[in-house]
């Protein structure tokens, strides 16, 4: 698998850290933004390697978001596939507003919601179709808890579930979610708060605050 050189990213990280004296985490986030802009520019120029790099960079987050919103792995792959093909079809005219990750995650969430509407409502027992990542250290109790969490997550209202998934699994800030969905930040925060509260109440104190 050919990977793009990250000299540009490294150079930008080094430059930012030298100039601003920011810590490593902030510098990493800033460099990611610069890299996204660089990748989008190359992507708009028709660089297939840039597209590949974008996919490599955000595929894990997108699969997590889609996996949390859909009930089978085939649908997850289809959603990510459709989102990326649609994204690639905008080459040459794509304008990045906000973060690239947020844009792609919202696209995945919206498409997953459309697929969910088209298909039958998600039933907790069908969530098993999305295979959990094999973890040898995971005990039976943990597996049971995880299954219950997924079930309760599926029972949330769609808007709450999407907000929780985007914030927790997509690592999107509320402001970014609000920007991409067109909702107000307070609305997004409220949905998240209600969603988490519902999950916590359904899990009946099995988790610490």
């Amino acid at each position, binding site marked *: 698998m050919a990977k793009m050189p990250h000299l540009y990213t490294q150079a930008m990280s080094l430059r930012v850290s030298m100039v601003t004296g920011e810590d490593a985490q902030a510098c990493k986030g800033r460099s990611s933004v610069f890299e996204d802009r660089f990748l989008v520019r190359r992507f708009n120029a028709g660089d297939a390697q840039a597209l590949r790099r974008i996919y490599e960079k955000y595929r894990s*987050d997108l699969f997590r978001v889609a*996996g949390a919103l859909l009930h089978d792995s085939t649908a997850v792959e289809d959603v990510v*596939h459709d989102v990326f*093909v649609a994204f690639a079809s905008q080459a*040459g005219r794509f304008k990045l507003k906000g973060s690239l990750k947020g844009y792609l995650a919202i696209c995945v969430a919206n498409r997953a919601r459309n697929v969910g509407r088209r298909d039958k409502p998600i039933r907790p027992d069908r969530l098993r179709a999305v295979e959990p990542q094999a973890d040898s250290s995971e005990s039976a109790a943990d597996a049971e808890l995880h299954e219950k969490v997924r079930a309760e997550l599926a029972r949330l209202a769609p808007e709450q579930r999407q907000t929780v998934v985007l914030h927790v699994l997509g690592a999107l800030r509320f402001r970014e979610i609000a920007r991409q969905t067109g909702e107000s930040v307070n609305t997004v925060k409220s949905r998240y708060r209600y969603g988490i509260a519902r999950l916590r109440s359904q899990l009946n104190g099995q*988790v*610490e605050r």
Partner: protein
Amino acid sequence: MNRSGTIKDLIRAACRTGSGGSEWTPADERIVRDASAAMRQTCTDNQRVTRICIWRKIMESKMTRYSAAAVVALAAALVLTNPFGGSRHGVALADVQTALEAQPTVFAKGTRVLVVDEMPVLMPPGLAPLFERPGGETGPFVLTLTAETYMSPQGCATKIYDKNGGFLAEICVHTEMGVATILLHTAKAYLRFDVPQEYRDMMARFTIQGFIDMMYRSGDYRRIEPKRVQGIEAVGFEVADAHERLLAGVNSPIVRFLFNMQQATARVWIDPKTRLPVQTEGDIEMKACLCSFFKDAHVEQIDNSFEWGVEIDEATFLPEIPESYQKLSPPGGAAIGVTASSIVLAGVAPWCLFRIRRSRRRTRASRVR
């Protein structure tokens, strides 16, 4: 019970899936491949759209519109003043053509000079005494004639005189009626026959207007340096390959027997003020044929007196035949020879060359269609 994790960690842990892990799977390869194909297709389409958009953007620009208008105005000015390469007189054949369209009739007067190295034997009666040897005993034989030509949409008539004013011959074509008449006054003979429709159409263009129109439309001519003609600094246009046009256009042994052209050059001189011709010239080199009395000959034709818009009686193109004139019966050899010689010496031939060439082009075009 997981007491150590927060709800976020629990959600993250619960939603870890096999898909989207760190390992590259066939599904990832398929997604990237399809996305790349979509991107390539989009880029290809964008290139087409971009060209259109750029043009739209250009034309939407106010500055561009003004610039385009300026360029168009400049180009129009250039075309109207000098479309064919420039002349300090600013005369274009298009101007001449326009000026001629306003002059449907013309009377032209000029000379025809036939130069042969040897005295012809076969010639119409009465012509032999007219040959001169200005170069002495070793010089060529020269026959100098004067021609008066009447042209109108109804027809064309040429009257040929010797240099002393003796009326030698008369060649008239009534294009509307399709009748050609040749009067040989020295021989007191005449020839009248119907012109076939195909030749009638061709002869209908045997006018100075048609000649200029042909030059302009073909674009196959050369500007020549201005020359003082009849006190006027005239602008010249020249066609130097008339012989090729004729030989290439008419592939008939009979025509070659009549007009065996080896080299033919035609020039027209235009008055820059009136945009009308002030002189036409033709230089023709002929191999032995009927027109040259079966001798290699050089024919010079000059028309240097033009009267435009004159009234021409229709009878000029269909003259009355004197009762004493003997009728020649075509296609008798003598009649053909006389007819051909008369036509050439009348100066019709040089213009015929261009008309035949043009007719050939139209025929080719119609074949292509």
